[in-house]
């Protein structure tokens, strides 16, 4: 029962709840729904112009119009980005988490250092690596030359720029995934390892069957975060190459066509919906796979 008065004052909680509700509907839920609707129209960004429903034309244009080759390239690049980031980032993160979890001296320091890039933010991280990767005077190029006698253009290379962006993305968020794994590892009861030890399991067996099964929930969280993150973020791209040198992804395309492209809003809307559907498919597949592995104990 509501204990704070009767009559009119009964409505106070509802009135206050209207504030977050209104912000959410106005800035996120509404625009999200409108974007889906726009994707079926010929809406433009010219003030006062009307809009007409044109069915699936925008979706057709995403894949089969004059310049859709680039857009399809972006979609393929996005999927590539997602796979590499998800696999490599979580692989390294799991390895580091397992290592740190065996009570190394200085584990808190290691944790803190690996998480630092998230605290520093994209703008700083991108600039730091732009300096490291400067083609003329950057230390990495000097290293390349000393080791292999070869120089790279890094963020200015048509064939390599995207690879370096993937590297920066993983460098930045590896620590985050590691923390999530570490939390999972710390919740595994020690007795299980002792029981396994008595039964004569090898190191690998105990990792494969005890650790790996019991941290399945953190695996699920990490997979979802990397899939959704890789599919929808483009801030590192924006801050390093700004989409040049074959580094555009779907999320970047939506941004580019909304803010700096033509006045047509239908096409980027359709692209957003395609992006959403791809995320949805991968999330459902990942969750299904992961749920199978989660065990009760």
């Amino acid at each position: 029962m509501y204990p704070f008065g009767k009559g009119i004052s009964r409505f106070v909680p509802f009135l206050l709840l209207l504030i977050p509700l209104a912000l959410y509907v106005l800035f996120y839920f509404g625009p999200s729904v409108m974007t889906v609707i726009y994707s079926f129209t010929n809406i433009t960004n010219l003030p006062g112009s009307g809009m007409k429903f044109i069915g699936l034309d925008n979706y057709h244009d995403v894949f089969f119009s004059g310049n859709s080759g680039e857009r399809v390239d972006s979609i393929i690049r996005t999927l590539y980005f997602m796979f590499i980031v998800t696999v490599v980032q979580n692989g390294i993160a799991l390895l580091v988490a397992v290592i740190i979890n065996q009570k190394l001296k200085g584990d808190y320091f290691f944790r803190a250092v690996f998480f630092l890039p998230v605290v520093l933010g994209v703008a700083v991280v991108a600039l730091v690596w732009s300096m490291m990767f400067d083609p003329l005077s950057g230390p990495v190029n000097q290293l390349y030359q000393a080791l292999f006698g070869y120089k790279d253009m890094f963020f200015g290379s048509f064939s390599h720029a995207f690879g370096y962006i993937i590297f920066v993305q993983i460098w930045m968020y590896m620590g985050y995934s590691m923390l999530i794994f570490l939390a999972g590892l710390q919740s595994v009861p020690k007795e299980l390892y002792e029981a396994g030890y008595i039964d004569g399991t090898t190191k690998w067996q105990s990792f494969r069957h005890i650790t790996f099964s019991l941290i399945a929930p953190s695996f699920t969280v990490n997979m979802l975060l990397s899939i959704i993150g890789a599919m929808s973020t483009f801030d590192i791209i924006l801050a390093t190459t700004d989409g040049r040198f074959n580094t555009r992804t779907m999320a970047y395309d939506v941004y580019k066509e909304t803010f700096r492209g033509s006045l047509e809003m239908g096409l980027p809307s359709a692209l957003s919906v395609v992006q959403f559907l791809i995320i949805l498919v991968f999330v459902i597949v990942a969750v299904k796979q992961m749920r199978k592995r989660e065990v009760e104990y």
Partner: protein
Amino acid sequence: MKQSKSAKVLSYAVVALLLVLYIVPLLLVFNVSFKSFTEYLLNPIGLVSDIQWNNYKDAWTQGNFSNYFLNSLLYTGVATVLTLIVSLFGAFPVARNYVRWSGLIYLFFLLSQFLPNPMVAQFKLMLAMKQEFGFVGYDTRLGYILLKTSGTGIVFMMFTGYIKSISRELDEAAGMDGCGYSRYLFQIVLPLMKPVIATGVILTAIGIWNDFVGPVMYLPSPANYPITFGLKEFRGQYGNNWPMLACGIMIVSTPLIVLYTFIQKYIVDGALAGAVKA
């Protein structure tokens, strides 16, 4: 279980290798920031020989960083406080069933994490608001702050969970004594939620302070730039003058690193809470 000695050595080797990859770039930036441009061109990597303290002064004044810092503080401070308050307005009645359809509202708010990209229509909305009202919407401080104020995100979910652990009898006792709803929220509930508020503040503040895409989209006037956008502009201004840019990086990241070393534990725990609850 006993660890073999070689496994231990291998573990330290892997971690050491990674530490190099994480710390060396920052040390190099620190080193470069003290070099003159000529020294940098002649010897980009070696230890600085002639320390140029003036670099920092020049970068600070020419980069207009004081202005950017104030903007970032304003956006982060106001939007974080507002986010906490509106999250409380949402979380408390939902957790307590004090409004109709609480369960439905909770699910509707949860949906915010899984919506299709709202960018296109959001942009149109911001433009329309600017045209209609002038003081809010595209390229206004208020517009950006409202956009960043959200009562439906991770903070809302953390709050809802935490409020359920606060005894309902407290509500009844306070109500019996004639305490009003909003007074109860601010004077009784809020102080009880200190631990989860600390986490919420940190998560929200890091997110807004480091927001890069938002300002690039919605704050195109230099007077409104926060520090992230400022750093991007600084890059455009100085191109390959890396000693200057390194100063910019140090100016932006030093306060963060200092703060981080003091509240590291909370930040790490906060990030975890956010990820696991999400």
